[in-house]
């Protein structure tokens, strides 16, 4: 089944064209790694798929729901982990997770929250305010949120940034688990080696063109 489908998606800001006629598909149970130089539109594409921006032309579907006309259904099916941590500084880790899940209509048990925090390796910091978290700990808490949500479509914008080696390992382990369960993962990254561990397919977005890559390309060639 196709989880994410883009049909001639274009996005421009005024006269500046960021994306031009992008068509792509990601199946359930598949992880797609998207590369590209800075400013090539990778993050814009993720933000469009996450319903934060509308495409200027073209359309997209998430789990069969139209990305423009069925936004609520799309939002229920996906989760975006972006550069911003989406965490409230004055709340602690557990409170942030509870609030995030409440916004999705779910109320996890204490045990589920503890497991998610342990999964991300921050169980010891459950009661610490986010204000005191480092960038890497915030990233891990975002991972714990993804563990709780277990979305059908997971969008990751530079998932390895700020993470230490152990954190990157946890991120990849989670990606493997969720993909095995049938989720689709689209990640933008510059880390070829780490993404090659989990990606089934890869592509490079450069000069408005989405070019497919083989996994060997990730190890050998100059991508851009």
């Amino acid at each position, binding site marked *: 089944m196709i989880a994410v489908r883009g049909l001639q998606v274009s996005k421009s800001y005024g006269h500046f064209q960021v994306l031009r006629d992008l068509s792509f598909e990601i199946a359930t149970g598949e992880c797609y790694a998207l590369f590209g130089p800075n400013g090539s539109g990778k993050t814009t594409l993720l933000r469009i798929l*996450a*319903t*934060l921006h509308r495409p200027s032309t073209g359309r997209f579907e998430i789990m069969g729901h139209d990305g423009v006309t069925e*936004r*609520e259904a799309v*939002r*229920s099916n996906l989760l*975006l982990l*972006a*550069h*911003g*941590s*989406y*965490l*409230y*500084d*004055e*709340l602690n880790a557990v*409170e942030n997770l*509870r*609030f*995030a899940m*409440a*916004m*999705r*209509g779910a*109320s996890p048990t204490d045990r589920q929250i503890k497991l998610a925090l342990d999964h991300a390796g921050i169980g010891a910091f459950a009661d610490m*305010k*986010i204000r005191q978290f480092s960038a890497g700990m*915030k990233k891990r808490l975002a991972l714990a949120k993804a563990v709780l949500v277990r979305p059908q479509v997971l969008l990751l914008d530079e998932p390895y940034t700020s993470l230490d080696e152990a954190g990157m390992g946890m991120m990849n382990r989670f990606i493997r688990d969720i993909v095995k369960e049938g989720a689709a993962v689209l990640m933008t990254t510059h880390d070829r080696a780490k993404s090659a561990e989990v990606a089934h397919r890869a592509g490079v977005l450069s000069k408005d063109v989405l070019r497919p890559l083989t996994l060997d390309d990730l190890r050998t060639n100059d991508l851009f």
Partner: protein
Amino acid sequence: MIFFRVIQWVVWKDLISEVRSRETISSMFFFALIVILVFSFSFSMDQQAARELISGIIWVAFAFTGIIGLGKSFSAELQNDCLEFLQMSPAPKGAVYLGKVAANVVFMVTVEVILFPMFVIFFNLDVVEELPLLLLIFLLGTLGLSTVGTLFSAMTVQIRAREVMLPILLLPLAVPVMIAAVEATRGALNGNPMALYRHWLELLAVFDVVFTVVSFWAFEFIMDS
């Protein structure tokens, strides 16, 4: 059911954040305190003159204090891109709006309840009998300011000059609420029979309902645009 839970969680989140940071209420309180002091030193009045003027002074202080709180309501969401989180969450946007309105009303009424005794002291007012009615007027007026102010706070949060734009947009639209609140407060403070200013209270209630319904409807479009 989810709708009411989202309202509850948004209120909880805003209140707990404020209790821990004390950023909004303290700035609202000190601003209002300065307003009271400036007015009390500017006008030396007997009690009768004070009763005529004080309702306007009270609502000037409440409105501008409220604008500080309303502005922070959504600018706080910019931290760590939490506004984006709210935008793309599947939670009903109307519930998020009502949660924000409720939290803003709590902040504003809290400050008003602390400040009003200072008005009583500085302007030598005798208001014991009118207190329940005054509290009702404050609540209705604050709700009116909060419903439309919360909407404009969301509208202006991404604008660079949001601190300027919020009062520019909000105050003209809040004029009917302000006039009704001032007139009702004046009636209550003067000890007039209720029949003489009942229509102002009814007007306040009508504005509250209209502003809530329109803003509730408009909020989803603002969050999605």
